[in-house]
């Protein structure tokens, strides 16, 4: 029978939740790296027992951990993230220029084909790649050359938080940065172009046609259709049918088009999920009701999913990397909250239950479906 492994990064360590394919009973191991922020954990699609974790601390900096036994044991690997050349300056919140400074790794994205190749998304925003299992890291500096001086931090920092590797074309990479926007490379990360046409950020940017500077919160794709991208922006849920070259809004009837994560159903490329948040000023669900919204039409028409989720007095947030899906049939959907709950649905979102209730604030959720 298949198994499911849920990798949960929190504000005070990492937790690994496991279940059989029924997804009814869960075992929790952890905390791993107790007391540290774990921004992200991710497993290699080629070797699912190869896991990478971003362990970070305001006191002690950045550690990258690697496991080769599914998270039972871990070894620190390389943590030297040096920008190539002089990284120059970027915009600060107040419009002044500030020097680029490495702070932490937000995202680890293992290659779908090479177990020793893994990408890392940094704050201040940059993309790094390791081809030796995380021992050494090299920046792909062409990304910062795309008007990096006009990038600025979002509320969480100037972070590269989304990395999508096109499963059909190993040279095509998508990344997203708050607050710079979305970018695409067609040559394995050497050169990049902004893909923000159609994004509207009138409240945050003075230039309505700004090529960069947009606060993209998350992007998702279905592996069978990598030309279609779905975006949760600071405001607006967006869709692209041409690999990001143009975007159109598909917020439709959502109660709020602000939010952080977005996910795609494992078997239905037009079924997508978001968790509306009331506003950028309040960062909790509208009306105190925790509702996942599902669209089976690739956007515009949304239905609330509420069974098993708190429908009163709920004021948690769901962060950008804290929602993921498994590949079982029916598809499982998982998300974590800043209140320390991890909710799961084993039926594509129709019914939910908490599979962990009292963890530290959840920063990220990834799911592995194991044979």
């Amino acid at each position, binding site marked *: 029978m298949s198994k499911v492994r849920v990798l949960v990064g929190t504000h005070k360590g990492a937790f690994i939740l496991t279940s059989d394919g029924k997804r009814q009973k869960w075992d929790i191991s952890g905390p791993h790296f107790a007391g540290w922020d774990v921004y992200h954990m991710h497993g290699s699609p080629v070797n699912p027992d190869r896991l990478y974790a971003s362990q970070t601390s305001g006191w*002690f900096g950045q550690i990258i951990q690697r496991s080769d036994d599914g998270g039972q044991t871990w070894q620190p690997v390389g943590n030297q993230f040096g920008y190539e050349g002089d990284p120059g300056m970027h915009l600060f919140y107040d419009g002044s220029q500030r020097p680029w400074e490495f702070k932490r790794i937000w995202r680890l994205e293992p290659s779908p084909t090479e177990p020793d190749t893994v990408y890392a998304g940094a704050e201040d925003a940059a993309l790094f790649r390791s081809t030796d299992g995380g021992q050494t890291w090299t920046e792909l500096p062409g990304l910062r050359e795309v008007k990096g001086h006009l990038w600025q931090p979002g509320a969480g920092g100037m972070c590269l938080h989304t990395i999508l590797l096109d499963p059909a074309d190993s040279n095509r990479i998508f990344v997203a940065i708050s607050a710079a926007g979305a970018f695409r490379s067609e040559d394995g990360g050497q050169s990049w172009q902004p893909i923000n046409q159609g994004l509207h950020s009138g409240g945050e940017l003075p230039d309505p046609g700004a090529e960069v500077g947009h606060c993209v919160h998350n992007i998702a794709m279905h592996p069978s259709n990598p030309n279609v991208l779905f975006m949760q922006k600071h405001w607006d849920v967006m869709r692209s049918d041409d690999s990001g070259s143009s975007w159109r809004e598909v917020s439709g009837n959502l109660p709020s088009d602000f939010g952080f994560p977005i996910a795609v159903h494992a078997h239905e490329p037009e079924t997508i999920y978001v968790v509306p948040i009331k506003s950028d000023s309040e960062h909790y669900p509208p009306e105190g009701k925790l509702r996942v919204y599902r669209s089976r039409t690739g956007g515009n028409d949304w239905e609330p999913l509420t069974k098993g989720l708190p429908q009163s007095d709920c004021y948690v947030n769901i962060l950008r990397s804290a929602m993921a899906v498994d590949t079982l049939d029916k598809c499982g959907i998982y998300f974590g909250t800043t209140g320390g709950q991890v909710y799961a649905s084993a039926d594509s979102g129709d019914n939910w239950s908490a599979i962990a209730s009292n963890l530290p604030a959840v920063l990220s959720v990834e799911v592995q479906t194991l044979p």
Partner: protein
Amino acid sequence: MIRVQLPYHLQTLARVGREVELSVEAEPTIGSVLEALETAYPMLRGTVRDQVSGRRRDFIRFFACGQDWSLEAYETPLPEAVVAGREPFRIVGAMAGG
């Protein structure tokens, strides 16, 4: 041998106790002790001082013999009591817990 005390999170990262002993071949200075520490425990590289700039991290302090050595240059020789092993060189996480 020079005794170096570590904050809790670096003890767990290096899988050692509160105190480690280091053999320092060069003149015992703040810098040579940090170099010996990072050589003996490579997982600590970047946790006490930035790997690129070499600067002490903002939330790290160095104490020895009841004195704050945090702002001293790396070339500063350590006091005789630390060199002789009677007193530890303390790497401390700054008081910022709440």
